[in-house]
């Protein structure tokens, strides 16, 4: 079963971390990524550029309206995502709990809908 792990964080809060602290977080992330690749659970993932570069697009009456900034205005934003293929939902939660952003902000674990369907 595949899961999307949404990384919620706050880039500006990273700026306030000491260099050691930041490097520690990056090292943790690198280690988890390496482990997930080793275990054959890593399907994909990317980090996102700063939220200030976000554009939100709405089409109203056929006219696109483009505004700067994210769809949901909040102090925290989606900072990146991972897709993992795990044997159990518990394992997906375990991966999320190990991700450093979970300690400062939050990780969201969402099952990915698939195209398989049982006989009804």
């Amino acid at each position, binding site marked *: 079963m595949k899961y999307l792990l949404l990384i919620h964080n706050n880039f500006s809060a990273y700026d306030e971390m000491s260099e050691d602290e930041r490097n520690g977080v990056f090292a943790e992330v690198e280690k988890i990524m390496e482990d997930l690749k*080793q275990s054959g659970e890593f399907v994909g993932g990317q980090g996102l550029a700063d939220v200030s570069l976000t554009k939100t697009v709405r089409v109203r009456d056929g006219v696109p309206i483009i505004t700067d900034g994210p769809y949901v205005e909040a102090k925290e934003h989606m900072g990146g995502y991972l897709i993992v*293929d795990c*044997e159990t939902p518990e394992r997906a939660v375990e991966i999320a709990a190990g991700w450093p952003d979970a300690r400062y902000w939050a990780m969201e674990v969402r099952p990915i809908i698939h195209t398989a369907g049982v006989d009804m």
Partner: protein
Amino acid sequence: MSADLNVEDLLRQLTPQVLGALTRRYGHFDLCEDAVQEALLAAASQWPAAGVPDNPRGWLITVASRRLVDELRASSARARRESLTASYAPLLAPAADASSDADRDDTLTLLFLCCHPSLSEPSQLALTLRAVGGLTTAEIARAFFVPEATMAQRISRAKQRLRGASFELPPSAEYAARLDVVLHVLYLIFNEGYMSSGPDLHRGDLTREAIRLARSAHRLLPDDGEITGLLALMLLTDSRRLTRTGPDGGLIPLADQDRSRWDRSSIDEGVALLGDVMSRAPLGPYQVQAAIAALHAEAPSSADTDWRQIVALYNVLGRLAPNPMVTLNQAVAVAMVDGPDAGLSLLRQLDGDDRLAEHHRLDAVRAHLLELAGSRAAAREAYLAAARRTTSRPEQRYLQDRAAALG
């Protein structure tokens, strides 16, 4: 074109024999597996143009052995290399028509090894498809919708984990339990292919591959009732493949499928296998499930189905392999015999069962039975609850459509 296909089929068929022969001779399953893959690649690129050699099995064994020896020479420490070189007597490949007892045991041993209980399920599936099925890593990755690097890692990890495992059939004390795992892995491969909707070729390949592997397991152990039962179950289920989804990919329930398009030859083969084995082997869950599938396959319509017999078989299945999913299916059959209220009261036994707590199937079956009972509002609620809980897109659409029809 057809020459290509024949080469591909031949290579898949020979893969476990060649790998088995090499592993039995040299040990080092992981290195042998790499060497055989290289030999297969060489054959796939050379044979279509140059023609298939007179003894294709011998050709593959020779090429793979050479690669293996090169690899061992290049990679191992001096001491290890020297102790091994002593055993590098050339492996003589018997002629293609020679007695195949050794092949038979090798393929079976290989199947047991790939379904080793120390491996995770995804690893068992991947390794079985590659080492016994002869699929490439890229093909397996496509079938499971993961990147090739991910699948390669799963396979290499599984092989690492098996390092040191002996290349022998399981001891008799473990045999039955180990065989259960093999059957479960083949069943899961089939399901991966079958459950996907729409004309996705890669997934259909998985279904065919599972049937091919089950056939070969059946040839190796023709007297085993459960292997036969599993093969029959796959054939009978697969006979409905073309009718279980509509042109838009939507699911069509059993009751509404066009039975004239069910694959008669699959049904006949499944029914014949089952009839033969049930008369001479101890009963097991795969045989019972196949027997239920056979009753559906032979019924001219849902209304003309022998539901009474199906209820009886679910009772047997519930005793052999108790499982809340069995109760769910049983409730549907009970409703067909004794009316929806009887089915609904059976479902109430499952309320509070943790194994189904977050599962949409309980709501989906309840919705169906409520609809049969004429409780439209409650049925609609239950369909919508099930639609919210499923992680399958086609099922979600089906459940939403049923709810809308009651709205």
